[in-house]
């Protein structure tokens, strides 16, 4: 495992460098970024091939059907910004996997774009679009937390990294978002069915 050196200063004395292990995923991110900044077009192609589909998919799921053009616009600005800021990866200093960092960037670019020119909700059927409409009414940051957790299936640590928060802070944000969403969803009013009981085998 390649390791990065982290110097810790201990009361005026230089302590022995403390080595922090780096995951294979981050290793791959570092290498790709370094090659891109050396002008390697193959590396750029690999980077886009691997990261564009999940980012575009995330934007499409945030925006909903009929918003493909807007998703493309935001995807382009996301990767444009990302290429300018990929230096920490090339130098082996970034600590967040690139796929999560790109999701965060995409969320930021989307917020900026929607603040500049808000888009109206695409009309959807009553039952089909209810959850999406409830989420759309939440503040942007809470929407982001919910979509990353639900639509992108991130676990707690990944969600925190993608939101740029520590884990407890990310959990607080998500809980607050769920509380607000709960009011709009009306679970207690029985609009949604009860979950299935656990352990039923699917029939072939």
């Amino acid at each position: 495992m390649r390791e990065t050196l982290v110097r810790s200063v201990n009361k005026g004395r230089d302590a022995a460098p403390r080595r922090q292990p780096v995951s294979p995923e981050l290793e791959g991110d570092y290498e790709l970024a370094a090659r891109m900044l050396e002008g390697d077009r193959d590396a750029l192609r690999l980077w886009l091939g691997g990261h564009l589909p999940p980012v575009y998919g995330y934007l499409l799921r945030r925006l909903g059907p009929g918003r493909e053009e807007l998703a493309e616009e935001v995807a382009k600005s996301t990767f444009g910004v990302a290429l300018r800021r990929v230096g920490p990866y090339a130098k082996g200093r970034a600590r967040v996997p690139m796929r999560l960092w790109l999701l965060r960037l995409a969320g930021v670019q989307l917020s900026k774009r929607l603040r500049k020119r808000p888009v109206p909700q695409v009309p959807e059927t009553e039952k089909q679009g209810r959850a999406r409409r409830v989420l759309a009414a939440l503040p942007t940051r809470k929407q982001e937390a919910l979509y990353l957790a639900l639509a992108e299936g991130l676990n707690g640590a990944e969600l925190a990294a993608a939101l740029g928060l520590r884990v407890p802070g990310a959990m607080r944000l998500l809980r607050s978002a769920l509380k607000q969403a709960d009011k709009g969803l009306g679970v207690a009013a029985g609009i949604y069915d009860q979950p299935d009981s656990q352990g039923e085998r699917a029939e072939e």
Partner: protein
Amino acid sequence: MGRAARSLYDALEQLHSGIPLNWSQVEDDPELIALAQLSRSPDITEWRGTGTPRALQDELFEDLASRLPTPKPKPVKAPPKSLAGFSEAVPVPIQAEEDIPPLSANALPWVGATLAAAAGVALVLWLLASLLRLDSAPTFTWLQLRQDGKAVTEVRRPPGWVQPACRRADKGDGTALRRFDAPLVDRSQAQLKVGFPISFLPGTLPVTPTYGFRLLDVSLSPCTTDSPDPIDPGMMVKLTYTARKQVNPTTWTATSLVVFQGRAVPLTVNVERGNWKRVDIQGARGIYWRGAPYVDPEGKDWIGDVSVLALESGDRVSLYVGQTDLGVDEQMLASLAGYVEGSKLGGANRPLPSFNMIQLVKDGKPLENAPTPAARELSCRSGGEPNYKFEHRYYQVTSFKQAQAYTGYQLFSLPPTGEAPEPYHSSVIDGAVRPCTGNAFVSADPGASAQLRYNVMQTVRGKGIASQVTMFQWRFVPATVDVTKGTWKEVQLANGHGVLWSGVPYHDPDGSDWSRPVNVLVFEREDYVITLIGHQDEEVTEDLLIALATGMNR
């Protein structure tokens, strides 16, 4: 982390593993109830939109590529000077550095003798090479190696073969560059437009070190037609992969690997320098070349340290290109091509595999000429006729621990995470045990068989896919694989040997019929037989099954 944050964190972990939250977990927590409900909401979690438009990727690539710095050319080493008295054109065999004695004080008395002997051998080889040069160049049907503009290998086309008149290239003799259409992401869509079976690479190669391959796209180069058409005799296919090599348990190198394929089309490897050798891999013949630079059939420049493997097998040609120093070396290409060429063998030409515990059957009878596993007698501890002879049912257990308690051997379990080549996570859903005899569980029953069902979460083409894999395992007792229908091939794993079967319907050891197309891996490992089954439409691919089997542990 407080209790509320911890419960939410754990709930996310469970959802991330593909296991839905159940009522008893969330009933006292309104926010977790909302999470459980939203996680089942199709318009949030299931709607995936359309795929990424190719035009978006191309446009973004062109835009961002223009912002990249100009790559610095790597210094080209001057060729080493030849020994005095010998022509530089002498084809001296490549000598490993270990063979050269070090110039140490102890070696000095021997240096003169060693050099004299080496010079003598080289002289003899040079004389022989001069005499035999005209007869030593290999002859191929479709491939040719040209070095510095001169043909190094001979070509003999089949009698009656007519060179296709390509519309887009000046000539179809393998030297002109090919223009490839906009890439397709979907394999089946690409296959429909090509008149020969495209050989896609496996997701992982079950050798040491482990290699992983992820297909980025497929491009087609029509020859006689304007757009890709299966009737086009000169069509070429280009597959672009990310190739990863595991250098140690926690580190991988990744690089690009491009594969060109065609049928009955000339393929020329044009180089200036470098070293080459003739290769024979699983019945395919060809050339391995290493050096730089290299221009591939599309006209793309490969610089640095490049490996090229060009093969022909019958009327099929293939060419693999990648960076040697990033893992696409001779060893990898040979292993990969061996796997691909081995997979092509089919029908009467395929040698039948020999197993210790797996019997191939067709129309109710052992497959002709297939070796029969040695007969084993399984005696159950509590006496009585063994259940495996009657396709006895399996009985539900409540946990993996309980399944373990009722079997007399350490159970195998699927790896919780891995890559195939995309990342996946697995978690057990439920299990069942078939006792050796009768219908009552017996503690530590060595003749019992276990069935475990798993959730497997994968990332496929950028989206999360949840699928189920069912695993059966038992010890000492042979298994039969019915190859009357479907397709099958032998699989050599790092830790087992078996058969991959695909088709429908499939009758599993529990007596259930799988009525949608499945992939099934049955393999023997020591004296165990393990079966993995999953639906093809749930993305339970051959690559996934091989990765799960390879990563399995007790």
